[in-house]
């Protein structure tokens, strides 16, 4: 079975400081990795997917199969980045997502 681990529940950073959210997974096959974000009073939405290799709102995430990680990074945090972030994994060819427990990020002005 696949599993997603996000070790820190709460992360507080100052505005302008770098932020990194860790995500490790366990899955023996070829995973599909995602980061979802939930801003206050808004619905959950997709932030990044590993296949796209893109930067969204300044965030990037690289899939490291050797370390089974998909950490989310942003070099300079902004106040609007305060949100709950979830890492998620999907087995190839399967629709269902397995979510981590989430990281609450608070950006201090």
């Amino acid at each position: 079975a696949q599993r997603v681990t996000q070790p820190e529940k709460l992360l507080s950073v100052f505005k302008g400081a770098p932020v990194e959210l860790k995500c490790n997974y366990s899955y023996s096959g070829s995973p599909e990795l995602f980061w979802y974000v939930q801003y206050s009073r808004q619905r959950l939405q997709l932030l990044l997917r590993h296949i796209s290799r893109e930067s969204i709102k300044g965030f990037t995430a690289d899939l490291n199969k050797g370390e089974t990680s998909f950490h989310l990074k942003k070099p300079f945090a902004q106040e609007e980045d305060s949100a709950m972030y979830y890492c998620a994994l999907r087995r190839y060819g399967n629709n269902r997502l397995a979510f981590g427990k989430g990281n609450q990020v608070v950006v201090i002005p």
Partner: protein
Amino acid sequence: IAGITQAPTSQILAAGRRMTLRCTQDMRHNAMYWYRQDLGLGLRLIHYSNTAGTTGKGEVPDGYSVSRANTDDFPLTLASAVPSQTSVYFCASSAQGGSYNEQFFGPGTRLTVL
């Protein structure tokens, strides 16, 4: 385009009562899902449906049932609510087939069982 709608927005329910949470999508997505969100536990899949007429159990299905009579609707029923079912419930949908299909989420239903 509404996307995914859920009703009610919130509900307080007495233990033992029956409750149906409604979910409707207008994106013609084949696959739909129900999750519960609990502090410290993240999102956990309750039930899912890959296409109309089929359903499957997720990670935490006990105490819940679903039906998928058509493409658009995916109601979640609590036959006899218990306090441990107090949670925020999210419905989601995605296109069937292909890799990396994004799941789109509804606004959630906050349920309190007393």
